[in-house]
């Protein structure tokens, strides 16, 4: 139906012999909200590292909007329109939420612009709008180190959106959050999915149920299966490698 925003073919990444990603094939439609799950060590974070240019694969192709992105560096890929949110919130603690957002939002990201550029009117409006969206308007001008964990998570999602990417990669956005905060982040992601393609890596099954439309299960560096949450949950292979052990762990 839609054009593919992300296509990955025969991807292999090995760290001194150990294959973190093994001949992985994956594709995502534009506008899709995809959840990637998998047990520890399945290669989820390495998968994101490859897409954002942090890790270079030994084999395979990664195409974003039909363009091969492997030769590019992290910042170039970020400027092409792939934004990444990290597992632990990584905001600039000494800067205020407003400054964090302005920094991500700036259109010109070179030395000269940082010296002489001023945030344009539209950038300032975007930042103010985002502060409202993520609920930090009344804490906009205090250092981000004073924010709570949940607020930092929301701020980082805001920074991601400020970059106006086409594809958002979100790594475990609800780790360490309370139930209400989890739901708030879920609703935020669902709202963002209206206008962005989003890939979420998550462990929290409740949360996955809240937001998932299509789920990809990774296991030992390859795609184990793909489908709706119900299909995936009833797949015997998935139960064996992931959900089964999850149930045992819960007891």
């Amino acid at each position, binding site marked *: 139906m839609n054009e593919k925003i992300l296509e990955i073919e025969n991807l292999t990444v090995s760290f001194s012999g150990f294959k973190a990603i093994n001949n992985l094939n994956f594709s995502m439609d534009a506008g899709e909200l995809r959840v990637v799950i998998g047990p520890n060590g399945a290669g989820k974070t390495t998968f994101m590292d490859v897409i*954002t240019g*942090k890790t270079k694969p030994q084999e395979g192709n990664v195409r974003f909007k039909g363009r091969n992105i492997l030769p590019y*560096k*992290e*910042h*170039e890929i*970020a*400027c092409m329109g792939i*934004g*990444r949110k*990290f597992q632990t919130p*990584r905001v*600039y*603690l*000494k*800067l205020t939420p407003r*400054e964090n957002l*302005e*920094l*991500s939002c*700036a259109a010109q*990201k*070179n*030395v000269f*612009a*940082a*010296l002489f*550029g001023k*945030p344009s009117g539209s950038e300032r409006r975007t930042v*103010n709008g985002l*502060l*409202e969206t993520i609920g930090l*308007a*009344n*804490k*906009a*001008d*205090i250092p981000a*180190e*004073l*924010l*709570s*964990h*949940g607020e930092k998570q929301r701020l980082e999602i805001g*920074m991601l959106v400020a*970059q106006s990417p086409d594809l958002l990669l979100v790594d475990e956005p609800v780790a360490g959050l309370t139930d209400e905060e989890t739901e708030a982040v879920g609703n935020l992601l669902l709202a963002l999915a209206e206008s962005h393609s989003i890939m979420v890596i998550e462990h929290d099954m409740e949360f996955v149920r809240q937001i998932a439309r299509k789920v990809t299960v990774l296991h030992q560096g390859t795609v184990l299966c793909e489908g709706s949450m119900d299909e995936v949950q009833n797949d015997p292979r998935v139960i064996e490698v992931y959900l089964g052990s999850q149930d045992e762990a819960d007891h």
Partner: protein
Amino acid sequence: MVETLEPAVEPRKGVKARKRRAFVMEVAIVAVIALLLLIVIPPLLSALGQGVRVNQLGRYLALAIAALGIDLIWGYTGLLSLGHGIFFALGGYALGMYLQLQLPAGQIPDFFSLYGVSELPAFWQPFYSFPFTLLAIWLIPTLVAAALGYLVFRNRIRGVYFSILTQAALIVFFNFFNGQQKLINGTNGLKTDTSTIFGMQASDPRIQTIFYVLSVLLLVAGYALCRWLTSGRMGRMLVAIRDDEPRVRFSGYNPTGFKVFVFAISAALAGIAGALYTVQSGIITPSSALSTAFSIEMVIWVAVGGRATLVGAIFGTLLVNFAKTLLSEQFPEIWLFFQGALFLAVVTILPNGIIGWLRTDGWFWLKSVLGRDRLSTYPSLETDPEVEYERENSGD
């Protein structure tokens, strides 16, 4: 709660006015201090029979310019350079070479005859020109730093590896300057105090006064430059690079350019400092300007004064150097112990340096001592248990 939301989104008019007032205030304070240094302090010291201190003050003010550069790259950008002596020496030698060449036509500096050199080495030729020398003092360190920085930062060499690399580069430069008698008088260095400049001997009090005034003015200019660099978007980028460089890449910025830029600026400041220090000391030698100890001392000045404060860099430089002078006059053998103790004390008791401490805890401590304690943080935060928890647990 809801009422406070609305106006907080757009920075209030009051904030802008307060910022402007703070700016005017700062300009006024800097101007007053500069005028004190220029007009009041030198005659005062002379009247007290401490005329020699004026020259020392001038030299330490020159060193403070280099300390500003260290604060820029270390305090704000998190790059601990242990090789800033290179840039200091390049600036000092550039001016030293110009002064050595103030001779009747056809003569070359005396020391060359010691080593049987009868013709001036080619790289000395441009230093006949005063404008070229003025340019070389800051441009050569800038270019060297930019080249070195580009290679290092592009390859993502960071942290302690960067520090070791700068120290190694310093030793390379030391060996070169120390060993090449036939080119730059090797270990003896270049004397400047017997040369003539503007038709007078460089050690003449009138000339020295000019250098003193120049040191004050260039320190003020350097401070203004660093304040400008660290206040706007550039300053926020530097802090972001310091605190989480990989994250900066994912925000779409290439940190390499920013780091090369700020490293080059700090080298330019060190070069200017080196030139001013050299003419006020009367000599520059590899074993003073290019010793590892000297480059590390620069870092100590900033650590004592307070990183990422700029004022702290200047204050720390003056404090440590005057302490060094006064103590080593009285008890020559204990200065090094004192310096070590000072550094340890700062690292363990005042990790943010003296100015850093004054700006944070010290201010509240002073207030509580004076009995003027009052709540002065964001009120909704003060009552927010989550924030309280974060504060208590964010010390790691």
